[in-house]
């Protein structure tokens, strides 16, 4: 049992960021090492992780700002750990993918590592104060990644991304305040401890429904914007289109997951105690996000924008599964988080590779690339198939579980999704694939070549992962299943768990 595993997990990339900032051209090696260690660490944690217990594991808790009731409390359970795993995996692959980065590499890799720090913090912190700090910190590296490595409209995109999400998180902060100031511990003191506060929301005498509704709405907004769900998604396409490939990957694979994580950790425990209308509202938002996202993707000209909207659509499944609130759907939604996190990487990487090999991302200008880059074509094909929910890859399992589970409580919405989204999703994937890759090779692309080995490698790795988790979902759904049952039940505080 590693002591302070989580703190190490957060500290090492931070250290790595500083080092690689000063490592100049050697930055990538430093970064790789600094991201491999957390990966190894998290795998080790996976070995030690008790899949069946609903207890927070690897908990560390120290007083930080006693006068405000702020503690440095971190720990993981089935909700957070899969995402921790995801973050460490994706970070490594992203760093490998951008091995050839030549523009200010030291800053570039430092920022990628900072990103890892932020998301790891969000997924592990059990104290709202700490949670919020990490939640905000994540914005900064992403702002710079978009802003200084981005495309033509990078400034607009970066600022829009920052302000849009920041406003949302401020609303969330207000809601957190409301929780904080309403609840008093038995000894009259205040606490930011997540689990304690969430457990308290069950108590009607402390949180009358009318009040809890407002708090709930505030928190919900914060998370839905991050997801992002319709109609709060418009920052996403801009950010993605302008961001550099690695930026998009991290954005889609990790940052969006923060929103989903929030749903499971914070929203679901409160759901039973708030106005029932919320279920309908969230369900509608989810359905619209899924269907609308798919149709938007169908209408896009830029392949990266297409992928961006596909993220909106896929994250909608997370919302749907979460709000459907059955064991199967919640498990599925958690798994969708994980699987989308993996699969979206390969999509954005493909888009990026096309961008810098061919020089354009406009689908209409592409054609017959498979003729010149067969290996890449195979991988991209596999990625797209995974994304459109081909059985055998992780995406299918997740969406199947979500739909099957959601039907029990939200039959109508589920059926709408099934009928309107499945074919559309397939349609835009195949259309893009066919237009870009197949058909006769265009004259102007006669001399394009396979992308670099490291790009192919990182993409192939993702395909392999998607296959592994598609064929053997149990590896991770066991953990999530436990978490799902635990989400269904009233929240246990750390003291009730007997952890501290």
């Amino acid at each position, binding site marked *: 049992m590693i002591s302070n595993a989580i703190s190490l997990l957060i500290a090492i990339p931070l250290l790595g960021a500083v080092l690689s900032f000063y490592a100049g051209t050697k930055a990538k090696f430093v970064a790789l090492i600094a991201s491999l260690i957390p990966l190894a660490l998290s795998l080790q944690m996976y070995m030690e992780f008790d899949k069946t217990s609903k207890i927070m594991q690897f908990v560390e808790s120290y007083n930080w700002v006693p006068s*405000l009731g702020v503690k440095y409390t971190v720990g993981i359970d089935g909700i957070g750990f899969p995402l921790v795993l995801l973050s460490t995996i994706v970070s490594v692959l992203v760093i490998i993918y951008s091995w050839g980065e030549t523009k200010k590499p030291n800053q570039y890799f430092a920022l990628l590592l900072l990103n890892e720090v932020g998301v790891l913090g969000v997924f592990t912190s059990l104290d709202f104060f700490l949670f919020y*700090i990490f939640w905000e910190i994540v914005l900064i590296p992403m702002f710079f990644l978009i802003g200084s490595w981005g495309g033509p409209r990078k400034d607009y995109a*970066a600022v829009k991304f920052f302000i849009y999400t920041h406003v949302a998180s401020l609303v969330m902060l207000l809601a957190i*305040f409301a929780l904080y*100031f309403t609840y008093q511990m038995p000894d009259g*003191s*205040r606490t930011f401890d997540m689990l304690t506060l969430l457990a308290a929301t069950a108590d009607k005498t402390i949180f009358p429904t009318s009040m809890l509704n407002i708090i709930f709405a505030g928190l919900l907004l914060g998370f839905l914007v991050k997801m992002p769900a319709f109609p709060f998604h418009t920052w996403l396409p801009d950010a993605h289109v302008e961001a550099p490939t690695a930026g998009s990957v991290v954005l889609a694979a990790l940052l969006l997951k923060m929103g989903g994580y929030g749903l499971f950790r914070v929203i679901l425990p409160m759901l039973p105690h708030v106005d029932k209308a919320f279920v309908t509202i969230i369900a509608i938002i989810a359905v619209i996000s899924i269907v609308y996202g798919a149709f938007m993707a169908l209408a896009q000209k830029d392949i990266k924008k297409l992928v961006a909207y596909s993220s909106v659509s896929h994250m909608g499944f997370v919302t749907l599964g979460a709000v459907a609130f059955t064991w199967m759907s919640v498990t599925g939604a958690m798994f969708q988080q994980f699987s989308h996190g993996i699969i979206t990487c390969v999509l954005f990487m493909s888009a990026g590779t096309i961008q810098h090999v061919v020089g354009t991302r406009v689908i209409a200008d592409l054609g017959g690339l498979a003729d010149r880059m067969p290996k890449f074509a195979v991988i991209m094909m596999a990625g797209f198939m995974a994304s459109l929910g081909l059985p055998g890859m992780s995406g299918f399992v997740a969406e199947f579980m979500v739909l099957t589970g959601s039907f029990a409580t939200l039959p109508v919405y589920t059926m709408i999704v099934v009928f309107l989204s499945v074919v559309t999703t397939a349609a835009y994937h195949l259309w893009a694939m066919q237009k870009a890759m197949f058909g006769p090779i265009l004259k102007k692309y006669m001399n394009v070549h396979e992308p670099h080995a490291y790009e192919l490698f990182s993409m192939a790795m993702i395909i392999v992962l998607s296959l592994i988790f598609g064929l053997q979902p149990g590896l991770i759904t066991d953990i999530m299943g436990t978490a799902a049952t635990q989400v269904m039940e009233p929240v246990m505080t750390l003291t009730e768990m007997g952890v501290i």
Partner: protein
Amino acid sequence: MEFSHYAPLWGEALLTILAVLVVLLGSLMKNSGKLMGYLSAAGLVAALALVASNLTIKPTLFFFDTISVDALSQFFKVVFLVVSLLVVIASMSKYTGKGADEYFALLLFATVGMMVVSSSVDIITLFVGFELASLSTYALAAFDRSRKNLEAAMKYFIFGSVASAFMLFGFSLLYGMAGSTHLADIAVASLDNFGPATLVALLFVIVGFGFKMALVPFHMWAPDTYEGAPPLVSALLAAGSKKMGFVAAFRVILIALVALRMEWYMAFAMLAAVTMTLGNLAACWQNNVRRILAYSSIAQAGYIAIAFVVVGAAYGAMPVNVLNMGPIRADQLGIAGALLLILGHALMKTGAFIGTALVASNVSKGSETDPDDISNYAGLAKRAPITAFCMLIFMFALAGIPPTAGYIGKFVLFSSAIYSGLVWLAVLAILNSALSLVYYLRIISYMYLKEAAGPKIKEQKGYVVALVLTLLAVVWIGVFPEAFINWAMQAAAVLLPQ
């Protein structure tokens, strides 16, 4: 009366003597700028040590009960001393030659004035200290004698003296009403004989302090002066003398005029709301970085002013467990929050202005372009990495991004607002700090995202030391706020009837 009895005031005494000494020496020996710099820096450090030696002292009165040394005064003295120290350190690489002695002397005098204000409980001493600080800063604002300097100084001077005239008139009315110049007496008196004159007095006093605090509509001088004055002086104004306005307002309004609670509650509710909104809005379109910072500090003043509203709202409320500091009252928390934000803002603003000073100092004298124009900041990250990084952190801190001093201050302050039922004000403030991102991000994206415009900048030692010290302080407060919160709470307790 033995000498040691005055120990708590040695700091002021030391600085006064030092200031006089600096002037004398300066006139005696030629180009002794460097020496003067080191001298006054040393003096400030010494004074800081003296003040710090009894940081949380029981309130003790001196000089016929006109001067009170207590936690609050010490808190502000620390703020002023730190700011002046940073400014001096930065100035040491700018003011080396002729006239440096005057510069440092004025700076020290200004500091002394502020320190006097911070601990005066009698309107006479308060007025004297106030004027001492103002007069020296008038002179400082014009120090480099460029066109901009003089215009800035002129506006500052005229507006300032009008404001202090208002304040004096208000004081006179207060004296007439109470028959005494002691704040305590005024407090007692204002409870019974209470008339329109008192209201006028209150508002006139608010004008006087509002001018220093740069609350809308008493802020008009601030943007021009901060932009026009020598950058380091702007730092002193924004970070130092602004805070003097707050401490004076705390003492006079919260203690002496407590009877008019409803009135100043309303007044400050309006002022705070208008100030933060207007400041942020006006900042969005500025192209002069120092002007942006000026407006941002106006907005910050708006946030800090929330404390008055909180006290007004929560006055006399029963103490309860607001936070984990045992039973305390929302108004105390509010003041504590304001104090934290004052501390944080003082540091961030000093740092930011020092940064602008560094950039401006590298623009050749003759050049037509405004040295503070934002276009000069393009690609600063490449041209002056340390400065750019510090500026970056200061911007995020000003915007209230955790974990920085700015975040903690806002956090406690807004918490108190919510706690005392002023949710609308808290929401407005939070929306405002979101809006403020527009211009902070603009500066940042110029520094980091634009291509470098111009040659590499030589980062002089003095500036860099000051910047880095400030940076460390800002982050330290943000990451380990515990001690500071407690300190602020103790300081706040001074203002409230036990």
